[in-house]
């Protein structure tokens, strides 16, 4: 029996549940580097750790019999693919909250029905694109655009989006200065089962153990989003320069570079005192993965992201106006193609030879960089193949749930620890400043942008 378990917000509470149920999955804990777990109590039980969002997909495909994830991700999958073989079988009582459609108070929206009345092209930003589209269709919005993002959803309101799907409760959302318009889906943790496994396998012992936990599980899960990320916000003006800065791993080196260049950005750089004048510059912190698309759409003029994410964007949209302005040099990684060490292939030619003999129905290519992975497989004639999108922890997919991984690595050590080997290096990536090919229409805006670019260039030189 195979069990898919969540990383992230539900991990600690899930670990407490599994411990209380006596499942004997001792290595399932935060900061553990182990993705594959075996049970001391149930010899036939194995478990693997995934990003929460991957779990409904993995269970519905039958790769796992059971899984634990938030109800919101189950709804996100089933709203688009209602016939997937996925059943919610048990509410686990923690991870409480809701996914809400929210708007900025500046939008003038106070009820969800206000959207129906207005024929404009509504922009909806969300980590849940299927739910966002289903809401737009349900509301019979005449025109709408859904922007799928990796996170920092609330940062897009109100300048870059009209509506966002945010997790939390109404009080939290009000505290963030947003207006909750419509509850979309609960986020509470649930046990999900593959329908076929549920119908055919005896999972009674494991289910009894989970159901026997009567004491409530301490709920320390925090909503996945709803952190106010607008750092400097000034009224929209044609000459405004909109700059996107990265969160996550790239935040620290970016902040260091900006501080060195003389920028003092409260809440981002640790610099105190007055820095370079940033009047007329709006700065928001969003995910680097989302920046190229946002620059292409004209929501931002400049952004600091990775060359890997720029390349992924350009693989999907080859005619996009986004371009690299400046290589920043930090966050250097290699984007590599990886297989398990047991495979008798050390390079692409060897992989092709092996595939011609191995008799795989198709090659499963897992990656966070879905567009790079797709192009890589296509250009290298690895057909037939299928790209398996992942949301992190990708090395856990091999060998059971994917055959080849397109992943970034600094030293290759983590890959080696997971008994994986590199068979090709696609390219090297570092942080970069990106912008658009479109010329700014306002001279003042162009001058401000140029000043930022030149300051960073001089700092690097």
């Amino acid at each position, binding site marked *: 029996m195979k069990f898919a378990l969540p990383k992230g917000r539900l991990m600690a509470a899930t670990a407490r549940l599994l411990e209380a149920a006596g499942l004997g999955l001792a290595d399932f804990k935060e900061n553990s580097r182990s993705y594959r777990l075996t049970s001391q109590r149930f010899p036939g039980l194995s478990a693997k750790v995934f990003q929460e969002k991957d779990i409904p997909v993995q269970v519905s495909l039958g790769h796992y019999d059971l899984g634990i994830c938030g109800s919101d991700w189950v709804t996100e999958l089933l709203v688009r693919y209602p*016939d997937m073989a996925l059943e919610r079988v048990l509410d686990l009582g923690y991870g409480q909250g809701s996914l809400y459609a929210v708007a900025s108070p500046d939008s003038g929206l106070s009820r969800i*029905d206000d959207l*129906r009345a207005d024929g404009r*092209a509504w*922009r909806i930003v969300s980590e849940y694109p299927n739910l966002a589209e*289903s809401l*737009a*269709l*349900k509301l*019979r*919005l*005449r*025109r*709408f*655009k*859904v*922007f799928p993002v990796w996170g920092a959803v609330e940062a897009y309101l109100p300048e870059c989006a009209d509506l966002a799907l945010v997790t939390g409760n109404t009080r939290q959302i009000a505290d963030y200065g947003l207006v909750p318009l419509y509850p979309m889906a609960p986020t509470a943790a649930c046990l999900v089962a593959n329908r076929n496994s549920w119908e055919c396998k005896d999972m009674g012992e494991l289910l009894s153990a989970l159901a026997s936990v009567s004491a409530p599980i301490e709920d320390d899960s925090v909503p996945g989003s709803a952190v106010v990320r607008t750092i400097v916000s000034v009224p929209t003006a044609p000459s405004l320069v909109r700059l996107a800065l990265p969160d996550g791993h790239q935040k620290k080196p970016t902040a260091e570079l900006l501080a060195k260049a003389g920028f003092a950005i409260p809440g981002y750089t640790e610099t105190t005192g007055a820095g370079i004048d940033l009047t007329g510059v709006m700065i928001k912190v969003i995910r680097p993965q989302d920046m190229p*698309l946002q620059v*292409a*759409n004209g929501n931002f003029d400049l952004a600091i992201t990775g060359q890997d994410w720029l390349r992924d*964007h350009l693989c*999907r*949209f*080859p*005619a*996009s106006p986004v371009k690299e302005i400046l290589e920043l040099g930090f966050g250097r990684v290699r984007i590599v193609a990886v297989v398990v060490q047991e495979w008798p292939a050390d390079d692409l030619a060897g992989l092709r030879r092996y595939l011609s003999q191995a008799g795989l*129905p198709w090659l499963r290519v897992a990656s966070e960089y879905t567009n790079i992975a797709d192009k890589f497989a296509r250009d290298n004639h690895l057909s*037939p193949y299928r790209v398996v999108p992942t949301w992190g922890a990708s090395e856990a997919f091999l060998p059971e749930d994917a055959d080849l991984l397109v992943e970034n690595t600094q030293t290759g050590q983590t890959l080696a620890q997971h008994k994986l080997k590199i068979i090709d290096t696609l390219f090297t990536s570092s942080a970069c400043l990106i912008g658009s090919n479109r010329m700014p229409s306002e001279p003042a805006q162009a001058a401000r942008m140029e000043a930022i670019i030149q300051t960073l260039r001089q700092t690097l030189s």
Partner: protein
Amino acid sequence: MANQKCKGCRDLLAEDMAKFRQIEGVFRECCSRWGYQEIRTPTLEYLHLFTSAGTLTPERLNRVYSFLDWDGWSGERVVLRPDGTIPTARLYVDNLGQQKLARLYYVENIFSFEEKEEQSRERWQCGAELIGSSQPLADAGLIMLGWQVLQGLKLSDIQVCLSHAGLLRALVAELGLEPGQQDELIGHLLEGDFKALTELKPGKPGLERALSLLLELRGRSHGFLKNMRVVLAPSLPGLLPSLDNFLNVTEMLTTLGCRYSIDIASGKGFEYYTGVMFQFQVGDCFVGGGGRYDSLLPLVGGGLQPASGLALYMDQLMRLIERAPVSEQRVLLRTEGDPSKVTKACFELAERLHQAGYLAQLDLGDTETNYDWVVLIRAASPNYILRRTGRRKSWKLASVGEVIRMVREQCS
């Protein structure tokens, strides 16, 4: 691994294509005679063309093939055309808006996701749209056009089933629901789901009786609608404009000798329908349908313009029709001797036979019994030896003209 076609997609083989062209031919001919002009819309359209209330229901929109184009970074989605009428309305608005009356027809594929593998996700339809007339005559004319095509395909047991979207909408309006609920209920009705309506317990006097009369009874003549009018007019005057319009159309169909049935609850159709709706059946098989859509053009950016249309479903018709017998004579051309001397003569003969209306083909290892005639082309005299397939008797001929003359004489 063998190549496999996509789920829900269908290969059309030679036999299928022969039937496809046969249907298309009859349809084109009928449309052309009634003054319709052929158009073709693109396979890709913007999604927003189909999302307004009054175009496609959310249930249908959930099954469209939509995606971001290669330059779709703005989030604007495109769809594989899920319907023939809405793109035609868009085409009219974009190109023919100055034309008060347009009669347009098309043969196009439409795409819709179907869960079951045996259901086709790509379907072909023959469509005709009449834009610019609100007259009942236009509705009757379209129904008769469809009827004529089905008769032209030599189908028997053709039935027309009629309903009226305006009547359904008027009936729902009497229920006094909120606008959102009203849209939702109409969406269900137009998907053919009448359960929600029959389960409603309206408080308004006469409405329950009207629901029962309209949804449970079937009519076979316009008299049925006249009877309804008499009974419903006092308590539900809001139904009268639609009932009168329905009556006008059915009276015309009766005059034209069209056999039809009236079944309000058969009103499966599109959300854009506003007036008479019709379905064509051959035996138990639905082979087409259509209706009036007077409110659609403003939703795709045009002015208020009445319109109605029909579509015949190629896939169903291909299963029902008999393939027309092949009337042309088939000639197999075989060479003997030095190719440098006979190849040119062989091609010359083929060209002349084609010009004379015969099917002539070079023998590349073909099966002789698939042909009516075999001609042996030789470098030496006699240059042509003609023989009917399966017979011993042959004719020794000296020229291409003699070959054609002999084939013609023997066939007459």
